[in-house]
């Protein structure tokens, strides 16, 4: 099996599996308590969570009090976009605008749409250049319309589809100059890019465990101490009263350990992945000369290769590669497996053909040169076959209809 879909999820690290299992068992009382309970079992669980919080904070250069554990990236994005927006607007009703990049993950985009539909928010989608990057002048221009009307800006650290890295610190600085809050979704960045919450200057940052070798079902919003945020989940008042719900104690252990390991191994991993990725891109372009690399040629995630194959349907490519044991993705948003043309590629100005025939190959911690060779050997025949299917489809579509 050649697994090249690490941007979707990456295998859990063996150390993490051990630590999570141990945490599910370990307790002097024989009970892994509810961390909100005051007795010994509860105190033990609470201690594990606080140690996880400290370890995660240290890995991401944040303060422990800035870590709000969530069920994952989607929840953290929802909390940041809805919670910060609503808090800012509650404090100043004039601030009813939301500026969001047009290449965000749907967890951000759909949260913003929800605010438009249900909270009368005004949404401005920030344009990107042909590499998928939000230019600082684009943000400045969008703010300049009416700086006092903007509540929140959300721009991801690195794009999950095409891998382009955004100038997050620069963008945050522009927002802050006008007193506007800034959120970034850094789910794809941790582990291969240097991510410092403190140095980035952002007010809130989404991170998640399963993209860095941790378990599913746990993530966090790093939320600056002075940043007001209304809760989305109401209840017991856990997590600074911003995110109620009993925490997954073993999950936080796995998340924090994965973050610590990923950050520690980052320099070596990033350079190894950059090398493999460049081999992969060159190999694919050699085999299929008219393929096109999407996203920024240099400022991109080390493990991301995103290519369009003109004349092919992404679906066909995916199936043919899957049949050869190569797992990757079309990189487009899926609902029940129905591929829609990627909003990211369309925002970058790609035509429909380029958007339809796109493939995301994403490398991760256990990727090897053999994986790259397998893809490079397979891609020529696969593209040729997918093209025949694409040609069959377009010639049939062009034929006349019978009455």
């Amino acid at each position, binding site marked *: 099996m050649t697994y090249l879909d690490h941007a979707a999820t990456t295998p859990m690290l063996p150390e993490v599996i051990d630590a999570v299992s141990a945490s599910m068992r370990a307790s002097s009382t024989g009970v892994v308590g509810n961390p909100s309970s005051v007795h010994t079992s509860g105190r033990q669980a609470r201690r594990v969570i606080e140690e996880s919080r400290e370890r995660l904070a240290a890995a991401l250069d944040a303060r422990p009090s800035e870590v709000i554990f969530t069920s994952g990236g989607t929840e953290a994005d929802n909390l940041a976009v809805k919670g910060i927006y609503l808090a800012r607007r509650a404090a100043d009703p004039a601030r009813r605008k939301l500026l969001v990049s047009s290449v965000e993950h749907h967890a951000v985009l759909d949260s913003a749409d929800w605010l438009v539909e249900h909270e009368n928010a005004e949404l401005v989608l920030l344009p990107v250049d042909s590499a998928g990057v939000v230019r600082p002048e684009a943000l400045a221009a969008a703010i300049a319309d009416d700086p006092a009307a903007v509540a929140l800006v959300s721009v991801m650290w690195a794009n999950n589809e095409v891998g382009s890295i955004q100038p997050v610190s620069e963008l945050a600085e522009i927002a802050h100059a006008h007193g506007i809050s800034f959120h970034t979704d850094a789910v794809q960045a941790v582990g291969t890019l240097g991510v410092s919450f403190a140095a980035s200057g952002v007010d809130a940052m989404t991170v998640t465990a399963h993209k860095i070798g941790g378990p599913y079902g746990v993530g966090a919003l790093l939320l600056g101490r002075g940043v007001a945020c209304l809760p989305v989940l109401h209840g017991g008042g856990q997590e600074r009263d911003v995110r109620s719900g009993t925490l997954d104690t073993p999950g936080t252990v796995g998340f924090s350990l994965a973050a610590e390991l990923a950050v520690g191994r980052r320099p070596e991993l990033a350079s190894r992945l950059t090398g493999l990725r460049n081999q992969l891109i060159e190999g694919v372009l050699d085999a299929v000369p008219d393929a096109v690399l999407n996203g920024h040629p240099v400022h991109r995630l080390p493990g991301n290769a995103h290519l369009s194959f003109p004349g092919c349907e992404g679906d066909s490519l995916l199936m*043919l590669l899957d049949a050869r044991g190569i797992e990757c993705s079309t990189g487009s948003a899926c609902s029940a497996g129905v591929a829609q043309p990627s909003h990211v590629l369309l925002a970058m100005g790609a035509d429909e053909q380029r958007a339809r025939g796109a493939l995301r190959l994403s490398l991760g911690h256990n990727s090897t040169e053999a994986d790259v060779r397998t893809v490079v050997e397979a891609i020529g025949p696969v593209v040729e*076959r997918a093209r025949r299917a694409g040609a069959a489809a377009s010639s049939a579509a062009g034929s006349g209809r019978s009455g």
Partner: protein
Amino acid sequence: MKVLAAMSGGVDSAVAAARAVAAGWDVTGVHLALSRQPATLRTGSRGCCSLEDSHDARRTADILGIPFYVWDFAERFAADVVEDFVSEYQAGRTPNPCLRCNEKIKFTALLDRALALGFDAVVTGHHARLTDGRLYRSVDQAKDQSYVLAVLRPDQLAHAVFPLGDWTKDQVRAEAARLGLAVATKPDSHDICFIADGDTQGFLANRLGERTGDIVDTDGAVLGSHPGTFGFTVGQRRGLNLSRPSATGEPRYVLAIRPATNTVVVGSAAELEVGLIRCGTPVWIAEPPTGALDCQVQLRAHGMVSQARVSSDGTGLRAVLAQPQRGVAAGQALVMYDGDRVLGSATILSTERDPVSAG
């Protein structure tokens, strides 16, 4: 053999895929996404377009242990089936969208793509028998779907597999239950899959806009009004809302739909009778006959089989019925049978009452 099983999420296509697996073939399951905005859950008897149906198909594929993909054919479906459906009604004809879907989507768009991707055939859960390029009715006459497959050319049928033709629906459900497929008890679908609430007239009115016109008798006397000629079908009795009963008190039926004058003509059951049918270019599954052909013809999806003499008529066909038939609508297919065997089909263009006067 490497086959692509089209899996709607219903019990028939599930068991068809299962039989393909049991035959030892290399089977890949595909669910066709035909709606741009699919509903989350299935409602009533529509059985192919919701996300729940896609989920049901996926669960079947899981249990059969075959790869499964969802392919987006929504644009092709909208252009080739839904638009065709609307424009046919607009022109006063009565389309059969299931037939059109088989012709244009399953055995053109899907089949072409399957062949190009290296598959040998497309497997579907249609109730019909196909052996050596010969198409026959299902052994389950009540569930027989040969009528909506008769539009397929031999080169399309050469790459089609219908594994259910020698089984009854009860046998299909029993097999699904034996295999532990949750769809074993899923209700049959029979409404038009792309009309969410089953209100065809409302769907057409929404697409074409209401345009009030007269309902007249064969002498031109105005008996009532209609919101648009679309949505009426020749032979229809209900929903006419006529202000006056007929002189004899007999029920009245739609005899003709005339979009050009925006009128619907009604008359008695006797006036509905048709003796001659003119059709467009035929598709022959069997060898095309050299002269006139005596055969049985079926004139709509369910029922109405009659003996006829079919002969060529320019590029089309003309069929003289041995016994007059009622409610024969332009736009439907005339399918020719020799007993259970499908010989070919052609689209009905027009009908005439008296074969003799028509020459």
